[in-house]
């Protein structure tokens, strides 16, 4: 994979940078729970690309000038963003409806402009469709340079305003109380997303850039609970996906860069979804099964101790398997001892929870925790003294 050709190397560098900046920027969007705003922004670039092309041609220039097209796309994405913001702030529409309205209407209008261009009689339409899905085939050195510089600049900006963005994403009300201009920071965040989108148009196209903004942050979130690490991991996941995707797509014909990058990115996501140590599905399933077992056994023991009938078949099965009860629901010797201990603990907890002195400890009660794990032996002895003998149990 190291022997990439000249063009492929350009693409790979561009894709890596794009992946990093999309992952990092997208994280703030994701933490703000506004991931799909990127969908509206990216679709809203289309009319701008077309208008940019028309203006360039009207001025007698080359309609394919990348800077001109990107400038047009940035302007229309910004207009779309403002429309979306206005709709959510000044009407009763929820954000999802505003996103959907902006993306479909701007995209629809873009299609109208595309058909206008088709009939403008300027020969072929300069592969503007390439902006839909990205096309790296004819990428020039200048194009790659623009993408690289754009990606790096976005990354730098993100690093500069990452603190206020994290704060706004985490708790907008607190941020506002601290005097941060939440609305303007939100707009800045969207502006960065827009920048990434515009930069990525050429490589992955406007539909798939959304994937690069969403999938790496979601992937990274599985691996850390700290926002700064999530940002770094998302950048890493995005950059890696960008590089691997670009390299893979160069290795064989008919492998378009954009989709391959997205699929590699999704591969990372799927692995994380299942295998991440704490938030992963496998870990969660195991944890849940263990937890359910504990709840049932504990409940079963308490029922045994109080001579109550056990209604749940699962409880009975678990007790039997643990050797605590016989098939007919009668406790074994071990079961009796464990049941007595469970009930005694329950009694101790009751004292702890009624006692203001133990307030912090009492908050830990969840019906399952062994009392030895939160109290010292001396404290337990003291509580047992309060409980006293069997006859003095308060009614």
């Amino acid at each position, binding site marked *: 994979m190291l022997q990439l050709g000249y063009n492929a190397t350009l693409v790979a560098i561009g894709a890596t940078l794009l992946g990093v900046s999309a992952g990092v920027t997208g994280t703030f969007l994701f933490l703000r729970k506004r991931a799909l705003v990127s969908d509206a922004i990216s679709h809203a670039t289309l009319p701008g690309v077309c208008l940019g092309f028309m203006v360039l041609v009207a001025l007698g220039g080359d309609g394919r000038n990348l800077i001109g097209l990107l400038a047009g796309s940035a302007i229309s994405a910004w207009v779309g963003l403002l429309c979306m913001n206005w709709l959510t702030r*000044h009407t009763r529409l929820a954000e999802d409806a505003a996103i959907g309205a902006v993306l479909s209407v701007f995209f629809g209008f873009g299609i109208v402009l595309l058909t206008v261009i088709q009939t403008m009689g300027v020969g072929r339409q300069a592969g503007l*469709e390439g902006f839909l899905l990205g096309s790296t085939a004819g990428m020039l050195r200048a194009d790659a340079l623009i993408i690289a510089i754009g990606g790096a600049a976005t990354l730098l900006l993100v690093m500069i305003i990452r603190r206020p963005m994290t704060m706004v994403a985490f708790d907008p009300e607190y941020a506002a109380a601290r005097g941060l201009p939440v609305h303007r920071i939100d707009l800045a965040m969207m502006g960065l997303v827009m920048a990434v989108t515009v930069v990525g148009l050429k490589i992955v196209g406007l539909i798939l850039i959304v994937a690069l903004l969403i999938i790496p942050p979601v992937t990274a979130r599985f691996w850390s609970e700290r926002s700064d690490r999530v940002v770094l991991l998302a950048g890493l996941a995005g950059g890696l996906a960008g590089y691997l995707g670009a390299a893979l797509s160069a290795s064989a014909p008919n492998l378009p860069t954009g989709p391959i990058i997205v699929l590699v990115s999704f591969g990372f996501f799927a692995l994380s*979804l299942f295998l991440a140590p704490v938030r992963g599905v496998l870990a969660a399933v195991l944890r849940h099964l263990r937890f359910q077992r504990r709840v049932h056994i504990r409940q079963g023991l308490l029922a045994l101790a109080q001579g109550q009938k056990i209604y749940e078949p699962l409880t009975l099965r678990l007790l039997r398997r643990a050797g605590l009860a016989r098939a007919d629901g009668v406790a074994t010797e071990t079961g009796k001892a464990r049941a007595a201990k469970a009930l005694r603990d329950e009694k101790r907890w009751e004292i702890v929870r009624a006692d203001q002195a133990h307030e912090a400890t009492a908050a830990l009660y969840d019906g399952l925790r062994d009392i030895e794990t939160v109290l010292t032996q001396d404290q337990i002895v003291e509580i047992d003294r309060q409980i006293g003998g069997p006859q003095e149990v308060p009614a």
Partner: protein
Amino acid sequence: MSGEEFVPLSLTPLLIGTFAAIACALPGNFLVLRKQALIGDAISHVVLPGIVVAFLLTGAISTWPMMLGAAGASVVAVVMIEAVRRLGQIEPGAAMGVVFTTMFAAGVLLLEQTDTSTVHLDVEHALYGNLESLIWLDATGWSSLFDPEALAGLPPELPRIALTLLVVSLFMWLFWRPLKISTFDEGFARTIGVRTGALGFALVIIAAIAAVAAFDAVGSIIVIAMFICPPAAARMMTNRLETQITWSVVFAIVSAVSGYVLAGYGPLWLGAADAVSAAGMIATMSGLILACTAIWGPCRTRAGAPSTA
């Protein structure tokens, strides 16, 4: 314009566009109220991999396998979104974004890998359809509406979308009450025995059916726009659900008709020679309607709702 020109060239595309718009707007009302508006967006993206897979399996461009493929892909997408959301504890928007972009990427990749040069199957067509080409060449005038021979030559998209509209309307009529209750107050709906999970899934499936049928005729741009814009605009006009539905149908019809007419004749009026994309124009018109209601609609703000502090 005379019937001789209008019936063969404009009547069928107008009807197809209108039916598609209504079929999407009807379930769209509930999707918007349930804050699931973007399900339409997700579905219209995954239609592409659906039809590509159907093409790979059958080796031919024929309508029914492709529609089945698209519908199947929608179901897969909805299930995957739900699975990612629950299993990964990820907010719905991000879960949607992960799933539909991935499936779309897979669709593009499959398309590139397959030799489809001999058949007409491309991304652009999937995006904005070809409403203008759905003409009725056998018609000679209004009288053709009663001529069985001419009727047999109707573009097959018309009966398909009409049937879809019928199915969607039936579903809405039949499940109107539980849909309304469970959208308003899901907890209460469950206490009176409404199976809210199944109902929510059924709504999404109905939306998917509407999306696939409309997509077949007019492309996915109209689908997203019609799911969201007419219902959102209608919401700004009234505070009653029944009235909202009516408004949304009206807006859908107005968008479809005005969009089609403007796309076909607007450029001529402006002195240009060729028509522009009807699908794109219909979406644009629905956006203009939404903008008008957002500025002037009588119920456009959340005024009067007390804070629940």
